[in-house]
């Protein structure tokens, strides 16, 4: 019953988005909005699933792939590509090539983090968070340095990568990302029960008969797929994942992945939709979806840390 209501509300939002101002008349505006809607659906799902799975692996409710440097590494890669080959490289590689390259990078990043996450049990939650934040800041500095070497025109192309953005998405890129997110999402949902066991921690999971190292590797691979697909589609999500994941836990009243994964995806898509509607009709394009979401989610994240700060980590 409740699921039906939520889905109906989301569908109504989507219809409102498509219809407001276009009157559903077929044409340029409607087709453009359909692509943006598709990008929001794919991107939102990817962000939600990546964040929830990452929090399960890290056993930590305030970490997300974005905070742990996945997106900063992606941006650095893009800057290096443009520096080495020029903007033409983006066209040369094609959407598929770029996606494959990002995927390889994020898999590598997952592996590197794997060592850090499980290096020793004393690593406190806040310590990991601090490492992630500083890592992101440093990588961003280096990216800016690389960007400085690039001619101004190419610099402008890269600048648009810095925040969530739904502009200039080609149907081709949307299709590639959609396939990746759908495939990874299907695997993630089918193994929902396994993630539940994994969330208990390494020792518990092992004694319950789970091949923990193997499942962790699979989980990190899925996270890399989600992160690569969404970052190359709509750009870095920064603090959005943390907001989504925690809302999903609160809505479903627990940590069962069979429920939190779909719920998180719905929340993410709804959030992107609402932000887009607000930018179009409330702010009259006086701001962007990326800035708006950054502001809201950053504020929520600060609130979350402060509320939890009174208790031992």
């Amino acid at each position, binding site marked *: 019953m409740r699921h039906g209501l939520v889905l109906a509300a989301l569908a109504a939002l989507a219809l409102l988005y498509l219809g407001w101002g276009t009157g559903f008349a077929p044409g340029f505006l409607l087709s453009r909005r359909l692509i943006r809607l598709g990008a929001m659906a794919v991107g939102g799902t990817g962000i939600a699933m990546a964040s929830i799975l990452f929090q399960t692996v890290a056993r930590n409710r305030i970490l997300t792939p974005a905070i742990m440097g996945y997106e900063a590494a992606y941006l650095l890669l893009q800057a290096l590509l443009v520096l080495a080959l020029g903007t033409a490289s983006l066209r040369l590689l094609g959407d598929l090539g770029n996606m494959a390259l990002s995927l390889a990078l994020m898999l590598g990043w997952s592996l590197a983090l794997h060592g850090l996450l499980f290096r020793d049990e004393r690593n406190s939650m806040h310590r990991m968070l601090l490492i992630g934040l500083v890592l992101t800041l440093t990588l961003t500095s*280096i990216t800016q340095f690389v960007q400085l*070497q690039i001619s101004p025109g190419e610099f402008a192309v890269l600048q648009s990568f810095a925040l969530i953005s739904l502009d200039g998405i080609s149907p081709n890129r949307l299709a590639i990302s959609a396939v990746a997110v759908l495939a990874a999402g299907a695997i993630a949902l089918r193994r929902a029960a396994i993630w539940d066991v994994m969330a208990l921690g390494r020792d518990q999971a092992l004694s319950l008969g789970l091949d923990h190292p193997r499942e962790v590797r699979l989980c990190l691979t899925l996270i890399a797929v989600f992160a690569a697909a969404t970052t190359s589609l709509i750009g870095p999500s920064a603090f959005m994942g943390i907001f989504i994941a925690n809302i999903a836990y609160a809505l479903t009243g627990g940590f069962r992945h069979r429920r939190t994964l779909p719920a998180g995806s719905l929340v993410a898509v709804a959030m992107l939709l609402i932000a887009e509607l607000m930018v179009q009709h409330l702010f009259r394009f006086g701001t962007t979806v990326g800035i708006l979401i950054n502001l809201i989610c950053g504020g929520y994240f600060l609130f979350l840390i402060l509320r939890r700060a009174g208790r031992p980590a």
Partner: protein
Amino acid sequence: MPLSPAPPSLARRAALPAAFAALSLASLLIGAKDIGIGWIFDPSPEALLVLTASRLPRLIALVLTGMGLAISGVILQQILRNRFAEPATTGGMEAAKLGILVALTLFPAAAPLLRMGVAMLFCLAANLIFVAILQRIRFRDAVLVPVIGLMFGAVLGALAEFYAFSRNMLQSMQGWMLGDFSRIVQGHYEMIYLVLPVVALTYVFARRFTVLAMGQDMAESLGLGYRGMVALGLTLVSATVAATVITAGAVPFVGLVVPNLVTLWRGDNLRHTLPTVALSGGCLLLFCDILGRIVIYPYEVPLGLTVGAVGGAIFLLLILRRPA
């Protein structure tokens, strides 16, 4: 951590000033315009112009920024009793940025001094809010403080971005927020001299700041006016941050890396370590600036980026090495 290690030998004591002098000289000599070294003995008018109009102001701005930020880091670390505190990890820099933006839109024609005043007020307000937030938290993990501070800064930054975008200033904001010393010429940097009285005052009150780090109860029972000292410290920090952000933009991590490295080397007695901290801060900025001028010669990399990369790497090492 040893409070006062054995007094360093003469050679070690002379090492830092010598390095500082060498870096200063290098900073004067290196640049897009090659002026050689002959001017020391027989200055030509052209070399003199380059020196007085550009190189010397730049040297002064660099050294004062480095000193001011390093000392701001020390003060914040004493007040918050946390090794990871500094203007960039307590939201101060982002607040100053927001302040400058607001001043630019509200009083576009105002004198730079007014802009700095607004930036300083915003920075001070952010610092006070941050101290208030931390006081409400009972359980304190040492790493929690910079995490909250960085998030606080991120929210202020998002606010600034929101504000800047709606007034079409986003691009120019990104331009002048990078710590960039290549624009510093005679007549456009003098506000940085404000750092000098701050450094002097900090040195005068050094003993009291050391006592401040023992916590409110201890400090008060030793006869220190705790609240007054905290207010003074935060004001000094805000003035420094506002002055450096207005003249050169945000320079992260100096206030964090320098005091931590000096503490490893010389201990915690501020009266003894403050000169070392100030000199090392100047040295770090000079070094990073020279690096930025050489890497893509004859162009330049803004200092904010070199310090961001170098300082970030040192910061990461400090966190990873520190036992949890």
